């Protein structure tokens, strides 16, 4: 089948998609967006998290056909228009929250979504919001730092226009 949808604001289409393919597979192998990662493909690790119509989802659990005519935003879409790092991306780099980085794309999307709905999350809010995203390298401390940093910078910037 053919699937057409919007990825990071641009229309994309994929041909010859087998019905069993996931959105994750289509993004990674068919439309050239390998940023979302494939760590479990079972909805357990969060590495493949993307926005689907503005809601963070595990793209490995979404059948490709389900995204027809919908909007997807991936980690590749978190950077600024001019290619500069987005605020959450920069905070992860600055805090040293990226080691192997395999968990990072999913965590970035999930953090972006958290700060969108709660710009000043408590530590327990952060832990709750990110509990579906596994990281094997960092021990999460620096991820906590990154989210706190991103929160502080979001608040310093003031509400979005």
């Amino acid at each position: 089948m053919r699937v057409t949808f919007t990825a990071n604001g641009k229309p994309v289409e994929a041909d010859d998609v087998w019905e069993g393919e996931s959105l994750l597979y289509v993004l990674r192998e068919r439309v050239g967006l390998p940023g979302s990662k494939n760590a479990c493909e079972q909805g357990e690790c969060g590495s493949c998290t993307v926005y689907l119509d503005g809601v963070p989802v595990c793209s490995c659990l979404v059948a490709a056909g389900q995204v027809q005519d919908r909007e997807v935003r991936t980690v590749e879409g978190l950077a600024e228009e001019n290619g500069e790092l987005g605020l959450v991306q920069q905070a992860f780099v600055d805090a040293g929250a990226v080691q192997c980085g395999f968990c990072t794309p999913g965590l970035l999307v999930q953090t972006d979504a958290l700060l969108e709905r709660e710009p000043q999350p408590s530590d327990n809010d952060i832990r709750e919001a990110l509990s579906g995203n596994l990281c094997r390298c960092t021990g999460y401390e620096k991820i906590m730092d990154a989210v706190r940093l991103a929160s502080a910078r979001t608040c310093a910037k003031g509400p979005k226009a």
Partner: protein
Amino acid sequence: MSTRTIQGQKNLQDIKQSSPDGIGGSPLRPDGNLKVKGEFAYSSDLWHEDMLWGMALRSPHPRANIVSVDISDALKLPGVYAVLTHQDIPGSKFYGLEIQDQPALAIDKVRYHGEAIALVAADHPETARRAVKKIKVEYEVLTPIVTEEQCLDPETHGYVHEPHEFKSHGYGNICHEQKLVSGLGVTDEVRALADVIVSGEYEVGMQDQAFLGPESGLAVPAEDGGIDLYIATQWLHVDRQQMAPVLALPEEKVRLTLAGVGGAFGGREDISMQIHASLLALHTGKPVKIVYARDESFYGHVHRHPARMHYEHGATADGKLVFADCRIVLDGGAYASASPAVVGNAASLGHGPYVIPNVKMHAIALYSNNPSCGAMRGFGAVQAAFGYESQMDKLAEKLGMDPVELRQLNAMSEGDYMPTGQQIDSPAPVAELLQRVKDMPLPPPLDLTNLDVRALPGALSNTSHGEGIVRGIGYSVGIKNVGFSEGFDDYSTARVRLEVIGGEPVAMVHTAMAEVGQGGVTVHAQIARTELGVEQVTIHPANTEVGSAGSTSASRQTYMTGGAVKLAAEAVKQEVFARGRKRYGWTQNDLQLIGGKVVSESAGALIPLVDLLGDEAIDLTREHHHRPTVPFDKETGQGFGHVQYTFCANRAVVDVDVELGLVKVVELTAAQDVGKALNPLSVVGQIQGGCTQALGLAVMEEIIVKDGKVRNASFTDYLIPTILDTPPIPVDVLELPDPNAPYGLRGVGEAPTVSATPSIVAAIRQATGIALNRIPVRPEHLTGTL
């Protein structure tokens, strides 16, 4: 402050402001921006026009004879390009890290659940999956050899490898063993010297590295008949060394380039899909990509050895250790992998960082039909630490002593001897590290009146409102060796090039070091900046075009490859000076490279590097070998076996819900001596990550193997700590230089994984009063419902 006002001196002071991006600073990762943008190419992201997908058929049985394999139906499936069995292997059919006992594809029999039997290459992963299902294998299923008792009685239960096919150092189903005796050993006379004796049986479950990036890579057949493999691994050269004979290619035709690695922790030290993808690519003449699914990853790499241990310790009434008698049995599974070295570590480090006048130790690794075990962070020291630290707590209780004081009383320090007879010739601040974690402020007590249930054990599930919760505190300390031991000529190679690019002096560092997330690439740039006084450093992709870097394991890369980068950079620097002396007749012997200039203490800035280099780059390669070690004597375990030791201490605070059997680690404090923190941010990150894997082993992580079959090969059933399970991890870093190491540094990555587990178990014991002799501690252990 200097009162001299020579112009040159002042210049020097201006430019001497050491770069914040040199060693001791915490510059950001050079690959960080790519990683957060989703542009960093991990091995599973690789793509080639016309590429095929490879997949393996894996055995559903842990032990069986293969009666027949029929690939005809699989081959008929449209989209299938190749189906291969061991008969299609052009060269040697076996490989292995230390012992070549592992067939690249099973021959006549399978020895563990998940062993690869045949390979498929197809145009879509789903086609490959279907083709794998169409391969018909007829098995004669045999009773697997899985328990210690079965393994040790081959007359009754059989051999995992028949004696005539033995390639091991051991005998029967023993893959390797190491004994150790020091002092008087442990005899009745020695036992009589002790006022108190405590003993215990301890068990450690099978832990998995569970790195997030699945095993994957892309093999591209080359025009010269060789193979180019882009791969996530820990050691490019040892992969090549094992691959070439199987592919029947000379090593120079097997070229490996490191692709992005999503964590490793020892799990990538062995071959996984390297040979399989290469065989398929050579056979089909097309690029072949293999990406393991998560369940295949659980089958496809070695795990941490599960262990059964017996410990007996004797001490005087005032707490001085008199003897330790230890037996450690590690289940190595079907193939040797790194088992011999793991046994060596368990035997030589298995008494802990304590001075014990009389020691007897016997460590063995078994062959069994369980999954193969090999390298994992902590490497043989982890299992033992659970044993000896549990014993220390038991002893303290029996003596009515404070557990930290007991440890400090017996703590080894510089100048003391290991039971191997090796003198510790650099700082060993064991007592101080314990003191540091003890002195750190404690987290506030649980406040039931102002409760966020998310902070309770069971966390989000709203399982309780604080009733039935008790808090406990536990301490531990551990010892780990750094680098490869027992006479292995451990070395690393680095190439450093200094040239002018775009009007600026730029250093390039080229090594074969596997960056697996640990931050070596950051540190290499820091070293080059420090040694060469330049700001711009590029890191060349790691590949086999340069000499071996050894493995990214054993906490050795900053020591070994960092050391090689230092040597190569120093050689480049000397070449710069030699060129200047020759060309400009410099006579000063106090030359330095600072701020992009050649500088002399006495004469000030001499010339900008840009002018001296012109368009003639300096490009030099150096090897760094650590000082030699020797193998342990087989019977006595004596010998200068380890190049360096590293120590970490922990304090764990836990809340236990005794009704539900759930544990929440409230805080896990660490103090570690790192010799010199080349990059403090990364060092702390490594320690926190290591502590978290230890937490996983303490309370949740275990591959469940029943009758040789893996029951939980998924992230649904094999649990690793989430951010909710992981507490704040305050880290206190000590820097006592090791005079034998580059910059005085000490390997960092593993010590916390060795030490942190026992502190958590100790804290749970303190909270509940339950003995807890097995890890991971499960709810049923705490509720008595086992």
